[in-house]
């Protein structure tokens, strides 16, 4: 956080609660206090935003040299020589308790209804340092409680404590101010410019950084209490940025996705696309999720054992010139196993689908590459990158399409070309929507497996399973290993 070139950070000794510490000269006091384990409550300060110092909740007492003696706002203060700080003195506590009392003057007693309850900074701080009962008898201020800010976010003006984090997010991070505090003093409230709906692909972040429940996500509203959900750290798969995310799951359904800090990739943010587009991961068998191995049987299909399907698939692959196409959503491990499958097969062409660049890139996070693991798969020797235009004519061929997301990335001509294949084997999380697959092997979604992805800038990251796959859906690696075994030793296949 401190400015100045690396290695030039000068250290100085300051006293915190009577103990001497080495601190970076010119560093932010609040960050330093936090780094040595002091708990300093704050609402308006966020490391990713400019400093407003408007909530005054992070006050500590300064008694030494440096800033004026008395309580100081630690998020705004820089570390200077000879500083002496008391974080828990009478004066500091009194100042913070006073701030809390003012904040709670008009805050509605909404916690049982409010979605933020359980992860609310105001609630936590009120528990920790606030008083149990208010002293006011005056009626509370009433403001609009359900104001829609576009199609993603809902604003509750009563709950807002005017920390302006969301205002600064649009100014500092997006560079396009959209929210503002209207009116002055005790009448001020948060609103968009001219009351217009919010625009852009990064609105969801203001819900994360809102310290209270003023901004809520429409998609998540009232879906679950935060403490009922299990959080799994993983990586977003909707573009090659590889934003670090936390997947919150309850009853084996994803309810929301939040960004997770990564200093070099996404910092504290993520785009709304990655945040809200998780319905494909939540797809249930009754909604079209492929949940068991199926074999085409005349006009219909019949369920079968995976081993039977793999044996048939191996036979098909040996029969015709085979084209094996892996989804760019596959992990590095799967890519290697996939290549090994077809390495020894004559006339087989194995590759991963490398679709063209999209027009989706923006200044902030979203890249123009819709594949989360293009970089990782292109590193694998013997696995060629196949653009949709290079698929060529598939008539008379055996085509093996493998992995989550292939159907989404294939369009128009490529679909028709693949649909003309003599024998189409589909290994996917749902039916492809083209061709007439002879074999349907269920695949896992990225939210159901372990593995590595390499993002567009070459950073290797691990994805983790947040959901349990349906019982009869094998791990993708198991499918590739089973297929490799049957391709390598054909005589045993019939057994």
């Amino acid at each position, binding site marked *: 956080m401190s400015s100045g070139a690396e290695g030039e950070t000068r250290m100085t000794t300051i006293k915190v609660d009577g103990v001497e510490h080495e601190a970076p000269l010119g560093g932010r006091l609040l960050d330093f206090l936090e780094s040595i384990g002091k708990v300093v409550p704050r609402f308006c300060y966020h490391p990713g935003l400019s400093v407003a110092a408007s909530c005054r909740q992070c006050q500590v007492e300064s008694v030494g040299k440096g800033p004026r003696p008395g309580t100081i706002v630690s998020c705004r203060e820089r570390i200077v020589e000879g500083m002496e700080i008391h974080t828990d003195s009478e004066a500091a506590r009194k100042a913070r308790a006073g701030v809390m009392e003012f904040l709670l003057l008009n805050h509605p007693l909404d916690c*049982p*209804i409010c979605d933020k309850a359980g992860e609310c900074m105001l609630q936590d701080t009120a528990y920790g340092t606030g008083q149990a009962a208010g002293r006011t008898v005056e009626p509370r201020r009433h403001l609009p*409680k*359900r104001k829609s800010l576009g199609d993603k976010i809902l604003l509750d003006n009563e709950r807002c404590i005017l920390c302006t984090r969301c205002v600064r997010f649009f100014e500092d991070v997006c560079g396009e101010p959209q929210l503002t505090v209207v009116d002055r003093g005790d009448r001020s409230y948060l609103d968009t410019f001219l009351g217009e709906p919010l625009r852009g692909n990064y609105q969801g972040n203001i819900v994360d950084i809102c310290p209270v429940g003023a901004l809520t996500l429409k998609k998540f*509203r*009232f879906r679950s*209490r935060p403490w*009922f959900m299990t959080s799994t750290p993983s990586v977003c798969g909707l573009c090659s940025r590889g934003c670090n995310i936390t997947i919150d799951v309850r009853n084996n359904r994803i309810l929301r996705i939040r960004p997770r800090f990564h200093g070099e990739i996404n910092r504290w943010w993520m785009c709304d696309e990655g945040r809200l587009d998780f319905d494909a991961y939540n797809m249930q068998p009754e909604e079209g999720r492929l949940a068991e191995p199926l074999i085409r049987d005349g006009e219909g299909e019949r369920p079968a054992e995976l081993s039977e399907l793999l044996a048939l698939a191996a036979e098909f692959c040996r029969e015709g010139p085979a084209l094996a196409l892996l989804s760019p959503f596959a992990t590095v491990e799967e890519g290697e196993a996939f290549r090994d499958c077809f390495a020894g097969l004559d006339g087989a062409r194995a590759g991963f689908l490398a679709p063209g660049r999209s027009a989706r890139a923006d200044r902030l996070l979203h890249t123009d590459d819709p594949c989360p693991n293009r970089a990782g798969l292109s590193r694998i020797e013997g696995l060629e990158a196949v653009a949709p235009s290079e698929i060529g004519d598939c008539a008379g061929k055996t085509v093996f399409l493998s992995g989550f997301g292939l159907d989404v990335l294939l369009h128009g001509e490529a679909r028709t070309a693949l649909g003309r294949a003599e024998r189409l084997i589909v290994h996917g999380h749902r039916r492809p929507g083209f061709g007439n697959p002879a074999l349907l092997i269920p695949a896992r979604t990225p939210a159901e497996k372990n593995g590595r992805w390499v993002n567009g800038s070459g950073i290797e990251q691990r994805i983790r399973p947040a959901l349990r796959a349906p019982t009869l859906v094998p791990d993708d690696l198991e499918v590739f290993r089973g297929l490799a075994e049957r391709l390598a030793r054909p005589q045993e296949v019939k057994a």
Partner: protein
Amino acid sequence: MQVKRLEKRLTIAERLAIPEILKGLAFTFRIMFRKRVTRQYPEERYEAPIAAKGQPLLVENEDGTPRCVACSMCEVVCPPKAITITGGETEREIEREPEEFRIDMLRCILCGLCEEVCPKEAIVMSDRLELADFTRESLVFDKRRLLTPVSELSNRIRYTKEKYDKWHSPSS
């Protein structure tokens, strides 16, 4: 191991048994004329005192809306995890209400913690103590079966309020 046997020798009266039998009969006859503590159950029902904790029920306001706001405090506190709530949005001023509220009475241990924790006085222990049925499914109560008009539960609500006021006097 050495065992020490304590042997009580019976008196002559005890060995004769007749006085003991008479003693027993006397006891029996004495009891016969006392007030009965048993009852002819299915015909004569037990009227539970107000403090009794029967099946938890949801309070329905006079206007037919549930009092519950689906805050999930009872779901959290429930020791045997008998409660399942799905929240939902309403058009009313109180924006949240349970879309689904299930109490599995096979699990419920009638501890009353849900009633105690509820910030809205929306779930109360009723006087329903006969909790047997022939199928498991019928003992999982959904919102529709749990919602009870406030008039039927007002005694219990008043009682818990009294207790609460007593325990949480303003001096504390």
